[in-house]
């Protein structure tokens, strides 16, 4: 078995990537592929010597799978039991008919998504990169500081070994931060973010043969928080290992040994029977619960020379849309694209123009996806009247015509980023939300005061979202050369 390098071999690198998760590994591979001269030095450093065992993303939309395939990383992941996913089933209530959002409706050539155990994915990526002679992977190194020149450009990265004894200062032309939503590099570069803790995502793993349509991720609503179920490993002819992710509130009402009972009492009633039985069995057998914070981190507009933020470090949203890893892969693809356009002997490899080009492309798909993901998460959480009306509206919109479900899925799965599609989706959802507020689903004589109350909630939500939609629209149409007036290099005004 090939193991990562114990320490960086060089003092200068063209690219140093911090974080060897999916974003960092994919970025490293994309840059290595883009290096026509095969003479660039790419270093990937990660805090963890072996693998990061923290519970994180496990679902890839087809667009992400396409990127993995183009990077030559997909085959090994598939060989490790990853499950091909055909789309989503969204349940408004456990006993109501689900809405199917299928990838094959988007395009017959799109291919499936993938559900894969995060540890297996991480292990596969690292092992494949270790074998890649163009990339140097060093585990067990923590980023501790950055050095900027008088222009503010990042020139060096300070790292410290896991044993706390060895320290290195690495010169780099470009530093790529791929170290997740709590990015250390972002903090070192003093880039402000406006992250908001949304709560926690609890993950429960179980095996089952009895869950219908295991090739679909299932969004389960109706309870105190949304839940997402997907297969992460095929372990037999018809047996799969599933992951159930549960959105629990910020205050985390139960901790430690009380958490399983809390989930049983408050969330499992909202699972369809087969899933509830499997989860209960898994808990009874002593399955561990994984916990990860859910954070809303709006796309960061920092323009620090020599620094690129990719993946969750550049912005993330509620995990219910399962699009975080796909976005990281799109970032990698985008980075590879701008690097490939540079002359083979250009120094620095990724100059300011190349990074601007990366940022412009990044700004076209990230804010759209984030806006859609945040709006959907808010609607699925349903914590206010407007959100609940929008949730009902989404279902009525999706049920109204298969085309509607297709367009929403295209936005969610990052295969569509055109501003006009996003705007038209917003308008149509708002129209359905207004109708959902005025016309009840069950009550034949809902009082006018209730309808007015719902309408007010919907209008308030629509009004709040309007600013966001306008912002997303502008980011999508603004020219590449445009820089926001009053914004300095650190992303602050």
């Amino acid at each position, binding site marked *: 078995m090939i193991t990562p390098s114990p320490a960086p071999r060089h003092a200068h690198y063209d690219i140093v990537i911090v974080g060897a998760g999916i974003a960092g590994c994919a970025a490293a591979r994309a840059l290595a592929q883009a290096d026509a001269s095969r003479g660039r030095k790419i270093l990937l450093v990660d805090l963890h010597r072996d693998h990061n065992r923290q519970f994180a993303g496990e679902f890839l939309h087809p667009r992400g799978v396409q990127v993995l395939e183009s990077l030559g990383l997909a085959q090994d992941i598939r060989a490790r039991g990853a499950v091909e996913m055909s789309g989503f089933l969204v349940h408004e*209530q*456990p*006993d109501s008919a689900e809405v199917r959002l299928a990838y094959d409706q988007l395009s017959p050539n799109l291919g499936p998504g993938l559900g894969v155990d995060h540890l297996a994915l991480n292990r596969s990526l690292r092992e494949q990169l270790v074998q890649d002679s163009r990339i140097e992977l060093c585990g067990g190194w923590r980023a501790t500081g950055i050095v900027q020149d008088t222009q503010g450009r990042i020139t060096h990265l300070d790292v410290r070994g896991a044993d706390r004894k060895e320290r290195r200062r690495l010169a780099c032309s470009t530093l790529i931060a791929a170290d997740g939503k709590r990015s250390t590099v972002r903090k070192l570069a003093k880039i402000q973010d406006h992250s908001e803790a949304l709560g926690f995502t609890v993950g429960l793993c179980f095996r089952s043969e009895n869950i219908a349509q295991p090739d679909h991720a299932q969004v389960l609503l*109706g*309870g*105190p*928080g949304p839940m997402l179920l997907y297969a992460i490993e095929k372990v037999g002819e018809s047996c799969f290992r599933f992951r159930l992710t549960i959105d629990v*509130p910020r*205050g985390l009402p139960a901790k430690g040994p009380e958490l399983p*009972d*809390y989930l*049983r*009492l*408050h*969330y*499992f*009633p*909202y699972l369809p*029977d087969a899933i*509830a*039985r499997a989860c*209960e*069995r898994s*808990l*009874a057998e002593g399955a561990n619960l994984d916990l990860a914070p859910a954070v809303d981190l709006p796309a960061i507009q920092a323009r620090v020379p020599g620094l690129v933020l990719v993946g969750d470090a550049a912005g993330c949203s509620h995990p219910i849309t399962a699009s975080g890893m796909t976005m990281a892969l799109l970032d990698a693809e985008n980075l590879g694209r701008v690097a490939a356009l540079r002359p083979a002997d250009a120094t620095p490899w990724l100059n300011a123009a190349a990074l601007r080009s990366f940022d412009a492309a990044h700004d076209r798909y990230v804010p759209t996806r984030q806006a859609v993901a945040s709006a959907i998460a808010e609607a699925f959480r349903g*914590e*206010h*009247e407007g959100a609940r009306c929008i949730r009902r509206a989404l279902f009525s919109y999706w049920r109204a015509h298969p085309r509607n479900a297709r367009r929403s899925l295209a936005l969610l799965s990052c295969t569509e980023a055109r501003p006009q599609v996003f705007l038209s989706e917003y308008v149509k959802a708002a129209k359905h939300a207004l109708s959902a507020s005025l016309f*009840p*689903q*069950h*009550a*034949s*004589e*809902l*009082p006018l*005061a*209730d309808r007015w*109350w719902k309408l007010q909630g919907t209008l308030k939500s629509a009004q709040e979202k309007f600013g966001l939609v306008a912002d997303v629209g502008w980011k999508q149409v603004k020219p590449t050369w445009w820089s926001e007036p009053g914004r300095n290099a650190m992303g602050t005004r």
Partner: protein
Amino acid sequence: MLDLPAPSPSTASTDDLVSALANTRASLQAWSARIHNPQSPHLVAIPDLRASAEVLLADAVLGLLEQDEREALLESIRAEQQDSGEWLDAQGQADLSLTVLCAWALRARGSSQDQKAIELARSGVLDRGGAQRGSFSLRLWLAMAGAIPWDFVPAVPSELWLLPAKLPISAHGLSARAQSYLTAFHLMASAKTRVHIGDISDFIERNEESKAIAPRLTRPGFVGDLMQSLDRAIKLSRKLPRRPIRKASLRRAQRLLCDQQQAHGGWFSVRPTLWAMMALRAHGRQSDDPVLLRGVAYIRRCRGWVERDGKKYLVQGHSARPMAQEIELARAQQDKRLRSLILDNEIRQSGPWQRRAECPPGGWPTEALATLHFDLWASVEALEGLYHLHRQDPGDLKISNARRRAAQLLLAMQEIDGSFALFERGETQVAIAKAPWLDAEPLRSWPPPSSFHVVLSARALGALHGLGWRPHDDRIQRGLAYISQAFKDNENVWPVEHLAPILRALSPMLSPEDPLRQGLERRLRSRQREDGSFGSLHATAHALHALISLCPSKDLPVCAQSQRAARCLIQEIVENPQALQSPSPPVPGCALARWAVDPSAPAKAAHFALLALDAAQS
């Protein structure tokens, strides 16, 4: 705020706690045996004698009673008469209407030995302005008996039954409970029904020309005068040739009434059932009609025995066996039947309650088979029962599914102001009941403002919290805002029996620094007396349970005030187990029985409090 742990010597001894728990358990078993006795079941919720008197009067028309039952009901009426000649309602207040009805029942169905009692009652009634000053339902009986003209009861326009259901003034738009009353009344008043049930005309106050003095139908004031004029105008309009409208309206009303008969044979509860049967009888249904026979059987099932001063009396209850009380009793006893009792009675069909509730079917009715009407109180009790069952067996999907359905319903029963409706959305906002009309009582569930309504809302919020709803959810916030406002307005008048359950329901979702929690806690703690009690045994039990729920951690001892209350409660139960039979304050009864007493309430409250204490101490 005094919330210090008590020194150990003041802690109630474990032996005393064990023997107190044994006493409460024995008392609950005794109540359970009485309630489930097939030969002579005891009543779970005891109303005043209004329904008993009305059943005795209606017996002449509907044949509701056997001879021995008639005698037993009369005996209970005789036993309840006060020295002043009056009868008291469930709250212990002298009630003119009840007095007339009871005296009339004695005269109509009793014997000559009752003459003295009737005379005594009569003089009291005449002193208070005569029987015509009684309630709307009494005047209806008087009008049917010919003792007063039909003009003395309000007029209801026939057109109300012909208007589309979506119009706010349509009879179809009223709550299901009010609808059954009003429809029956409309049918009886339209037919000018006459029944021959004994002369009561000497209870009517008359003027110098021996004419009955007409009662005022509205409160004094400009709007009241206008409404009085409107009433007169409606009555005058009946003289116009509008036979087709009237006929169509009566046809529609009869159909509506028949549709409202429930699977158990009755209508909303006993009194609406009586009225509906009288109305149908007045419109030509024979006494052997299956609809009426089922109604008679229901009324019979709702009768039960009560114990007063060591003697047993037969009383007409207002429902067969209220789910709320029965579930609470089964829960207290950890009865194995609790699961089936709850799950078998869940509402699984759409019903009239759903007209204004935006949710699929779920929840529990007031009593078994009453599936047309949702009852929030019963549902909250059922949810509490299911919560404990679910903890014992988390894999029971039937339980978790029932909890899920009920959660939807609870959310849908929340009013815009944050409170929760008991039977039907909008029941507290009856527009016509806000007008200065004296006879609006049948349209309301209870007279506002009612602290019981706040208790109910707090318990509904507590149940939602137990189902996982987050405190920052706007619906929970709205509910808390409603309770907060109600507390600000009425904190001085809430009894301990209401204050404590509110605090107990809300404490898990409010932080110790929350002003509402602090206010409720301060108010409750200030009610403790020198001896550690909070008044009655029932109040002390509720207060103790609430104070234990405030304990910040299971590892910490309960506070000094809880220790004192526990000592007092345990001592009282150990030394005098009969204290568990002491009367508890009445709670609002469903339908027109405004208040009812649950005789097992002190035993249940004490048992739950002691169990909580036991858990806290262990």
